[in-house]
């Protein structure tokens, strides 16, 4: 990867990490209600994959989806404002943390019913095939989703119809609080299921953005060429608990320590050193990310709440909510 591209990748990851940290802090200050599922630790999957995609490709994510929204063009300000129930939020504060969506860049949503969006990605890929656009659809999901029916229905249909869709599992070893290994019949919850559907199943270091980029680029080329879907299992680890209320005490200390040493940002910094990028360029990128997120926090704090009338808009395509005459 070109040094400039590598640096851009790093900066985007740093931006996501700082936004997630800000979301965490804002929650503790009582400025974010409900819940959040932070993606700190998962940045390389979103950013690495995104670097391998076309701008018009479709992305579908889960309730742990802040990193995907930001990897596909949502700003930290739009995301934080959404979390903080502000009118300027990505979804006008009608979605919240679990439903970040930026349709303008074909980031078609974050879904909070486990596995539900895999068939949607299949449908978007089917649509791309019917319209002959060469677009790809990518569904990102957690390891827990590999045990739900929609995962299996989606893989089979995508394979049978040979659709341009990639299924990317972010395997962070835990389905919520329970080790995925305790509830799954095969060692690799995603990749080991691929043979049943006659599609490639690969495993990649999900904390190395460059490896993710290269693997997704290869699988994307194949899918665009008409060779059908693929399943990628990206190994990673959450830096926070499952959700806001979870301190993640069920994870062994040595496991946490091992994974924190395998931090996607550290790995990317190592790549930058290898590529000969001067340290001050990296420091500047960090500083830009810090200042963008600080400005985002300030802007979101100062933004107005949604107009109460917005509760009654956008049920229907005409903008309204009328259900009767």
């Amino acid at each position, binding site marked *: 990867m070109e040094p400039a591209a590598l640096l851009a990748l790093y900066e985007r990851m740093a931006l996501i990490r700082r936004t997630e940290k800000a979301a965490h802090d804002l929650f503790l200050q009582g400025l974010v209600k409900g819940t959040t599922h932070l993606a700190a630790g998962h940045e390389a999957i979103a950013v690495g994959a995104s670097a391998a995609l076309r701008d018009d490709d*479709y992305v*579908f994510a889960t309730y742990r989806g802040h990193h995907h929204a930001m990897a596909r063009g949502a700003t930290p300000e739009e995301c934080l404002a959404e979390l903080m129930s502000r009118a300027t*939020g*990505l*979804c*006008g*504060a*009608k*979605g*919240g943390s679990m*439903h970040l*969506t*930026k*349709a*303008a860049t074909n980031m*078609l*949503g974050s*879904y909070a*019913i486990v596995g*539900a*969006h*895999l*068939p*949607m*990605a*299949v*449908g*978007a*890929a*089917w*649509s*791309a095939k*019917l*319209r002959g656009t060469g677009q790809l*659809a990518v569904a990102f999901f957690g390891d827990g989703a590999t045990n739900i*029916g*929609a995962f299996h*229905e*989606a893989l*089979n*249909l995508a394979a*049978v*119809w040979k659709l341009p869709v990639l299924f990317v599992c972010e395997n962070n070893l835990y389905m919520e609080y329970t080790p995925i290994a305790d509830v799954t019949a095969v060692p690799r919850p995603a990749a080991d299921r691929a043979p049943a559907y006659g599609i490639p199943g690969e495993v990649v270091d999900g904390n190395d953005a460059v490896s993710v980029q290269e693997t997704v680029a290869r699988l994307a080329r194949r899918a665009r060429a008409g060779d059908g879907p693929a399943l990628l299992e990206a190994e990673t680890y959450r830096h926070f608990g499952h959700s806001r209320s979870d301190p993640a005490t069920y994870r062994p200390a040595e496991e946490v320590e091992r994974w924190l040493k395998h931090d996607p940002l550290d790995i990317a910094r190592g790549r930058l050193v290898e590529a000969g990028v001067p340290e001050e360029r990296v420091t500047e990128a960090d500083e830009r990310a810090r200042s963008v997120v600080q400005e985002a926090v300030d802007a979101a704090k100062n933004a107005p709440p949604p107009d109460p009338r*917005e509760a009654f*808009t*956008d*049920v*229907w*395509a*005409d*903008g309204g*909510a*009328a*259900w*009767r*005459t």
Partner: protein
Amino acid sequence: MADVITYREAVAEGIAREMRRDPSVVCLGEDIGAAGGVFKTTAGLHKEFGSERVWDTPISEQAIVGAAMGAAMTGMRPVAEIMFSDFLACCWDYLANEIPKVRYMTGGQVTVPLVVRTANGGGLGFGAQHSQATENWALTVPGLKIAAPATPADVIGMMAAAIRSDDPVVFFEHKGLLATKGPPPPPDHVVDLGRAAVVREGADVTLVALASMVPVALTAAERLAQEGIGVEVVDLRSLVPLDMATVLASLGRTSRLVTVEENPYQGGWGATLVSVVADEGFGLLDAPVRRVTGECVPLPFADALEEQVIPTVDKVVAAVRSLAAY
């Protein structure tokens, strides 16, 4: 076109008309292609439009409706078939949590112009898992439009409206009506969703019915006319939008209301309709309201049992008589 068309043929004709005028309309479902559907409601579509627009799927209700949603969000107008409406439960996540909410929860960023068609209702001895009238399931979820036509012409006109709608529509085709016949409608016939029809005028009692209960109501009205009771029959045609204006206007003439619902009494659509009448039309009423509904038991298999559970003409006649005498 022939002088008459069956309800069954009208389904395929309604879809075909839209597929001819709009290349973004595509169909998917189990056995809908060369087989023409288990109810033959897609007969001829595969032959006319080919495999590029009529897609056979595996038995995967979640994948069918989920894929329809993804396609609808990206420029297509998919028409998905769920073979029996009982099977909507297999993909209920999409109808309860995904399709009706995605526009709202994204602040209006996406549109979901899709139709989920399904064979609905009982009276044919299919037993507890293939006979339910499930329109009321969909009625519990804000964000879904609900169509349930009673005649071949309405099937075509409402199919046009449903497919052209930028909102998701669940389209209930009644199994008990598939063999019924009626005049074919003219080209470009569109029946807007949310427009009930007064299908028989009468001065004494209003019967509000849906789908297969419309002919039951009309037969009851005919019998009651011989007793000198004038019955007005309103075919609701769709549950969302719900045409309360037509119902309230009819009550302004008759002052008496009976709903005829195939779904169980508990949670049936009539309960919602009657609550609006109680709220906004109380002054119009000269008698209590009656709901003739399915019984609150699973649908049994034997004819002798099923006819105990599904509303019959006799039950409707008895309900109207009791009100007319009030």
